[in-house]
């Protein structure tokens, strides 16, 4: 148990500075906003008193002060968004039209590379498979489970168990599943659950994570395992929000559970369903940690976010990395437009 606290003290000191900065910035801002207006208010009062004493018309409350307040309330957020998000995003777009070292303009060359290099085409195909399968499987599973578990005993416990992986990091989840997929040679005892099942069914053990395209499906399973809980919780809440009289009326009409599901449950939870699918699609597009931890993108498993990291931060290819980032952004846009259109339809309907 040799833990050297002294060696770690700089970190705590830094954390202390961080907290101090937090108190100073937030406290300072609130104080500033408190002191300055009360000074103005006092001056205004003094003016009022003077005006009423001399019989002159009463001065009106200055109006632009609301805007000034808003500015100060919004200042930290706007500043950080400009410096940390908007500015960089614009710059990334520009960089995607420049060469590896960001010195010369190269036009659309990076995009041409993206759609012609077979390795990158493989990456794009993989991403497509991810984006189709994860939302589909996770949402269907979450929906079936939410219906199944509705009003059974131990509902809360069962839901918690499904929901639990949401708290686990993608890195941790990848290690958990890598252990499930672990491989030992034919002559040894298997330590991975999946290979043990294969062997006990009389099959040959496999190095699952090296077998393309099966490995991509196995990585997708990790994401489904994490996200199904999210789908289940949101959909379960939507199911519980269906008005009881509708369900009761349907039951009195003697509908079968099957009809109940398709004619009562589904139409009623459609908005929640769309939100879940959209959220999962966007999250899946950006998936990075799982691929990096489980295979590091080897054996034909790489996806866009992973390739973007490699290009920009390992190979020093800023142009190509930026082009991949921009493409990722472009892929998100249609999903969001679909979502907005749906929301608008709901409001009107």
């Amino acid at each position, binding site marked *: 148990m040799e833990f050297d606290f002294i*060696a770690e003290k700089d*970190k705590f*000191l*830094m*954390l202390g500075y*961080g907290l101090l900065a*937090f108190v100073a910035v*937030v406290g300072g801002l*609130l104080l500033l906003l*408190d002191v300055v207006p009360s000074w103005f*208010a006092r001056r205004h009062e003094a003016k009022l008193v003077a005006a009423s004493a001399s019989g002159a018309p009463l001065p009106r409350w200055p109006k632009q002060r*609301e805007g000034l*307040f808003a500015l100060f*309330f*919004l200042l*930290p*957020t*706007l500043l950080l*968004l400009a410096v940390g*998000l908007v500015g*960089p*995003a614009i710059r*990334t777009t520009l960089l995607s039209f420049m060469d590896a070292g960001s010195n010369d303009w190269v036009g659309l060359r990076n995009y041409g590379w993206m759609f012609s290099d077979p390795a990158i085409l493989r990456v794009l195909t993989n991403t497509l498979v991810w984006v189709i399968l994860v939302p589909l499987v996770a949402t269907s599973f979450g929906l079936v489970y939410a219906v*199944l*578990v509705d009003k*059974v*005993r*131990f509902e809360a416990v*069962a839901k*918690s*168990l*499904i929901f639990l*992986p949401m708290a*686990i*990091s993608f*890195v*941790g989840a990848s*290690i*958990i*599943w*890598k*252990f499930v997929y672990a491989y030992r040679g034919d002559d*040894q005892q298997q*330590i991975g*659950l999946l290979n*043990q099942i294969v062997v006990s069914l009389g099959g040959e053990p496999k190095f699952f994570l090296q077998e393309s395209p099966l490995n991509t499906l196995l990585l997708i399973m990790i994401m489904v*395992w994490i996200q199904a809980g999210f789908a289940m919780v*949101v959909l379960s809440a*939507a199911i519980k929000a269906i008005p009881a009289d509708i369900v009761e009326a349907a039951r009195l009409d*003697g509908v079968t*559970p099957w009809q109940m599901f398709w004619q009562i449950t589904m139409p009623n939870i459609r*908005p*929640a369903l769309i939100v879940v699918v959209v959220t999962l699609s*966007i999250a899946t597009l*950006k998936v990075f940690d799982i691929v990096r*931890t489980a295979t590091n993108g080897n054996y034909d498993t790489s996806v866009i976010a992973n390739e973007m990291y490699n290009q*920009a931060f390992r190979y020093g290819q800023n142009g190509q990395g930026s082009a991949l*980032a*921009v493409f990722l952004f472009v892929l*998100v846009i249609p999903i969001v437009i679909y979502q907005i259109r749906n929301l608008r339809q709901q409001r009107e309907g």
Partner: protein
Amino acid sequence: MTTATPTVGAGAQATGATTTASRVRKRLNSRTATVVSIVIAVLWTVPTFGLFISSFRPEDQIKTTGWWTAFTDPQFTLENYQQVLFGSGSSGRLISYFINSLAITIPSVLFPIAFASLAAYALAWINFRGRDWLYIAIFALQIVPLQMALVPLLKFFSTGVTIAGVQVLPAWNLVDEQKFAQVWFAHTCFALPFAVFLLHNFISQLPGDLMEAARVDGASHPRIFRTIVLPLITPALAAFGIFQFLWVWNDLLVALIFADGGDETAPLTVRLAELAGSRGNEWQRLTAGAFVSIVVPLIVFLSLQRYFVRGLLAGSVKG
């Protein structure tokens, strides 16, 4: 009337018969549902459980036999945890990284909460021109993948900002543990659009009469914010806090880029991903290490699940 009466009677009899049948069937159905849903829930937990059991098994056992043999031949030890937490550099030394994770996470949760609640209040209750447009713009920023910001933001930290050959902002030039500041900054920026959106959802639903009354009483905006709004939105702050905590603690990408890989700044996730790559067969370390990283978010999650679910529903369904 006269013809209707017998039909009604027959109908009542028929429903009486089917209710008994359907009651039996329903009970059977609900029992099947209970069993099936519990079986699925247990299956869902098996991978985590296997890892958990393994983390307590001796090294030679983990590497040669499946974790399920621990039921017939139980041998447990804390050696793995001892090794991975406090052992020499190559075996993990996760305690250093654990501290890094804490040092990264706490400010990265506090800053966006404070800034976003201020902004959300202004967007909800202060009248100024262009308010709706500003809100829509911040809302829309949620869709920008953080990949769009990584390269320039790293450059911003390392070389500062130069416009037309003039150094406008200097480089940050941070070393070792000072790099925490970069990670805080990045996480805060990336969290703000969602934070503003989520908190605005809550703050804008506070009763307008309350604000009006406070204004009439002469309370200023900062005063209303501190004494009325903040106490009322604590559940929302908790919800976002948990989100952000889980997100930052579990994040790999941002830490990989803005914290150095060494034990000075890198969080647990970075170290674990590294161990999984370079020492992928050292299961005694990986299993224990994974659990060290999982335990904190698990505690936070289980103890505050109610707030988390509420935030999840508010953030996604009202969308």
